Structures are given as C-alpha cells and as structure tokens.
C-alpha cells in the first residue's frame, strides 16, 4: 500500500511565492524609484490590507462579527498622540506601546461583549466604540471634541529631512502589513489555525471535538485588537491629526473594511487582498466624482453577498482550486521521499 502524506503546498502557491518575493522587494525599493503620491497610496493600501486581514480573522474564522473595530484604531491613535505629546515619549516607543494598549483595553471590553452573541454582539461592539469616542471628546488632555495634533518636534524624532521621514513611514506601513499578514498566515497554519478553521466551518462541531472555542475566540479578539491598535497608531502618525470623529469612525475603519473582506472572499487569506485592491482602484478611478465610489462599493458588496457569498476568491477556489497561501492540509498518495505531485 502506498504511504499517505499530508501535503500543504500547491503548485499555485509555489508559483505565487516565486513572484511574491521580487514583487515585495520592488515595493520595498519604491522610495528609490516611485514618487510621493505612489508611496502614500501604497502605504494606505498596506494598512487597509492589514485591517482587512484582521477583520477576516475575527469574523471569517473566529465567527466574531464585530462592527466596533474602529474602537481599537482610535485607541491606538490616541495612545500614540498622548504618549508622544503630553508624556513626551519617543515616537517609536509610543507607536510600539499603542498596540499593547489597545490589546489591554480589549480585555475589559471582551468581558462585556462576550456575554452577547450574534446581532447583540455586533451592536454591543459598536456601542463600546461610541463610548470610547464620547469619552475622548470629554477628556480635555486629549483635546476634547477637537482632538490633538502631532507637533513638528515629534516628527523630527523620526527624521529632520522630510523625504527620509516619508520613506521611513512608508516602510513602516509596508512592514506592518507584511507582519500582520504573516501572523495571520502562520496562525492559520498552526494547530490554532486548525481550531479556527473548524470554528469557521461549524462552532458546535468543533466544540464537541475538543476545541476550546471560548479561549480561542478570546485570544483572537485580544490579538486582533492589539494589531488594530498598532495600525491605528501608524495611520494617525501619517495623518498628523486625530479627533474623536476621525479616530473612531465606523465607516472608514470598519464598514469599508468589511466590504473589502466580503467582496474579496471571507474566510480566505487571499480575499482581503483582492477586496482591498478593488476598493482602492474604484476610489482612484472615481476620485473626481465625489463619494460615488462608496455607493458603487456598497452595490458591489450587496451583489457579491447575494450572488456569490464566498466572494471573488471563493469563486476562484471553487472553479480552479487555487490556493496562493497554503494553509489547508490535503492527503496525497506519494512516495515519502519524493516531491508531492500536485
């Protein structure tokens, strides 16, 4: 009898890896061959991709349909502004602490919202975000309703030269995006990923097979909050200003992110990437026509949800069985020493 082996790589994933490495290298080198406009756009794409990966992990895998992730974007942003401004902390240290701060705040939040499920959980997370937003607008040291700005002195800590500063901020956005995507990828390949995929497919079934669903969800919730806070710190480091309305904005930091994930394909790693690209391309193409791109995005999201609920990537997988990020396990009949046949 032929030995059965567990195979993870696919031919598509190997081809993808071959192209991904030089592609990423070209993006890292962008400051030396692209202009400032491109750098700004790609930095934005990078943090939107990271936000989308995180929401996908939360809702697509752990089944936690939160509409309150803007809470952690805002908390991370405010943490950075408060630590570097009133507390005079170094900007890199402030940014590094923004993530853990958001993660720490997510612990008491989880005690409240984890008592709820389904629609109540979703609305609960939103109300929690509103509580943070309202609180920020009442605290005078945070600039109350009008918010805070980063002083030029703080920016000079990064670099005195503006071009160098832009390059560093750009590379940090890219790094965070790669870091978050790598965490999601490695997590999904690990035992915990198997547990998460099981929860995605059926929560009662995974619980009955010994998956500790509560603990898994709790860890995912806290970890995504921390990563979201870090991204929030970086976003507002680039925007230079934060206000309760901008920091805790549900449309900017959660709704469009949900649209990206659903359009691209929820419950896949590739989906958020495709959804993010569609969002950015639509916005840039329709930049001269006000907010029509958002209307169009809403229409596309509705159509995808009703006609192809597994999203664009889900459709591709069904049709062509492609997988660029090999997170699933397949059994193959192959000699143990040779390479697996796809």
């Amino acid at each position, binding site marked *: 009898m032929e030995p059965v082996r567990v195979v993870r790589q696919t031919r598509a994933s190997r081809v993808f890896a071959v192209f991904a490495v030089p592609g990423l290298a070209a993006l890292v080198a962008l400051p030396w061959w692209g202009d400032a406009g491109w750098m700004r756009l790609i930095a934005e794409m990078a943090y939107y991709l990271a936000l989308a990966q995180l929401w996908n992990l939360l*809702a697509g895998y752990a089944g936690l*349909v939160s*509409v309150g992730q803007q809470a952690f974007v805002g908390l991370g942003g405010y943490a950075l502004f408060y630590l570097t401004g009133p507390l005079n902390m170094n900007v890199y240290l402030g940014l590094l602490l923004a993530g853990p701060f958001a993660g720490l705040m997510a612990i008491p939040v989880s005690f*409240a919202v984890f*008592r*709820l499920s*389904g*629609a*109540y959980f*979703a*609305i*609960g997370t*939103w*109300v*929690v975000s*509103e*509580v943070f937003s*309202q*609180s920020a*607008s*009442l605290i005078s040291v945070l600039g109350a309703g009008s918010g805070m700005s980063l002083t030029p002195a703080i920016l000079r800590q990064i670099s005195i030269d503006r071009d160098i500063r832009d390059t560093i901020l750009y590379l940090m956005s890219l790094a965070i995006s790669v870091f978050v995507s790598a965490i999601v990828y490695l997590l999904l390949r690990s035992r915990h990923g198997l547990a998460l995929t099981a929860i995605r497919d059926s929560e009662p079934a995974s619980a009955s097979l010994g998956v500790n669903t509560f603990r898994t969800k709790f860890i995912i919730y806290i970890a995504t909050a921390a990563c979201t806070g870090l991204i929030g710190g970086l976003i507002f480091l680039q925007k230079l200003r934060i206000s309760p309305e901008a920091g805790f904005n*549900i*449309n900017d930091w959660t*709704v469009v992110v*949900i*649209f990206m994930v*659903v359009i691209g394909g*929820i419950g896949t790693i590739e989906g958020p990437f495709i959804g993010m690209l569609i969002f950015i391309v639509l916005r840039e193409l329709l930049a001269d026509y*006000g*907010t*029509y791109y*958002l*209307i169009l*995005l*809403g*229409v596309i*999201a*509705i159509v995808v*949800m*009703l006609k192809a*609920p597994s999203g664009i990537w889900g459709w591709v997988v069904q049709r062509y069985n492609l997988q660029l990020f090999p997170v699933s396990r397949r059994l193959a009949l192959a000699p143990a020493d040779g390479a697996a046949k796809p």
Partner: protein
Amino acid sequence: MNWINILIQGGLLGGFYALFAIGLSMSFGIMRLVNIAHGDLIVLAAYVALVVTENTGLDPFLSLIIVVPLMFVLGYALQRGLLNFTLSGGLLPPLLVTFGISIIIQNGLLQAFGAYDHRLQEGAIETASMQLPGGLSVGLYPLLVFAVAVLAIAGLQLLFYRTRLGRAFRAVSDDADTAELMGIDNRKLFALALGIAMVFTAIAGALFGVRTIFSPSAGPIRLILAFEAVIIGGLGNMWGTLIGGVALGLAQALGAAVNPTWQILAGHLAFLVILIIRPSGLFPRTRD
C-alpha cells in the same frame, strides 16, 4: 423639584427614542433582521418630507400623507426584492446588505443635498410649552411625540393580538419554518412587515426633522439609539421598546444633569450595564 423636571424631560425624550425604535423593533422581532440602515431610513424620510414640504407648501405633519405611502412602498420593495434573500444564511448577509444600503443612502443624500444641515418648520408648536403645578414646564412638542409613540404602539398591539395578520406575524416570529408549513407565505408577510415598519419610520423621520437639524450623516447615531431602546426593552415586546426608550431617555437626562456633555455617554453606559446584567433585555417576549 429640579429632579422631577429632569425625570419628566428624560421620560419624554424616551418617547422620541421609542418612536425611532418601533420600525426596528418590528423588523428585528418578526424577521430577526438586523437593519443597519434603519437610522439612515429615518433620515431619508426626513429628507423626503423636506422635499414634499418645499414643493407642495404642506407642513411637515401633513406631508406625511405623501411620505408615509412612499416609505411603505419602499419598505415593501426593499424586503421583497433584496432583504428576503438575506435571511437564510446567518448574521452576516443581512448585516452586510443593510450596511450597503446604509452607505448608499448616506452618500446618495450627500450627493443630492450636500453635507448641509436641514430642518423642517412646523411653526409655533415647536417651542410651545405647558405650565404644570409646582412650577414645572413641559414642552408641548415632546409631549406630542410621546403621545404619538404610545398611540403607535397601542395600534400595533391591536394589530398583533386582534387581527389575522397579527397572528401570522406572531407565528413567523416564533418559528418561521413551521409558520410556512401552516400555509403562511413568509416572503409576502415579511415584505408587509417592513412596509408597516417603514410607516412608523416615516412618522419618526418627519417628527425628528422638526425637532432637530439633520444632515446625511445623522443616521448611524439614530440607529444606535433605536437599537438600545429595542434591546433594553427585550426582543418582540413593543411596550418593552417604549420602556427601553424611556430608560434610555432617563439615563441621558440624568447624565446631562450632572454635566450636559455626558448625555449621550450616560445613555450608552446604561445600555451596556443593562445588557451585561440581562443579555436579552428587560422584558423579552420571543427568543433570538
């Protein structure tokens, strides 16, 4: 005496929140539809009333003769043509589709009317007040809104418990699959339910537009307030929704009495505390 005044103002404010919440309470209670666009539909109704009053010279209250049928048809069509297809696959499809509708309404209004603040003019009643013994003064308009909310809920209770249609609504609310086996056409019934819900959304929109300035982005906070009233009161319980609205209004009034800027925050915190203590609200009638 000051405290009695605060409680009265807060209670009357609760009538407003209950009115916001009736449509949501219906669609959530009957179809389990989490209608994220509910707040934007209230604002849309206010804009429709604005267009009607500007073009016909009717006052906002009378404009409801036109706004109510329009919103009923919109609700019926929305449920029949779109939302019915979202109800079989868990939480995400209705959530996402109504988020889409919300974004479309917000940005559609933004493109059509701009980001300016608008207001409906109803004349003297907006500011009229009534003197009560003991030096208390109650605004006539909040009183009127509270009365409308009570009448609307009483009317809906009659519909639910005294008519064939109401019995069908309660049946699909309890168990949609079994109701279908008993010969109820769920799709039609759901469309009718959202149509009726939108009648109250239209009334809420016009009354809201008279009381407060509104802009295209005014929807989401109305949605949250409405949701808080529905959830505090308990799923499927219309009088509970009224009590939820009043509880929210009281919490806000008490918060505002301590410091005017704490009003909204106090309401949210009260909601979260109630939700943590009783996750299914105070007086739930059906189970989620």
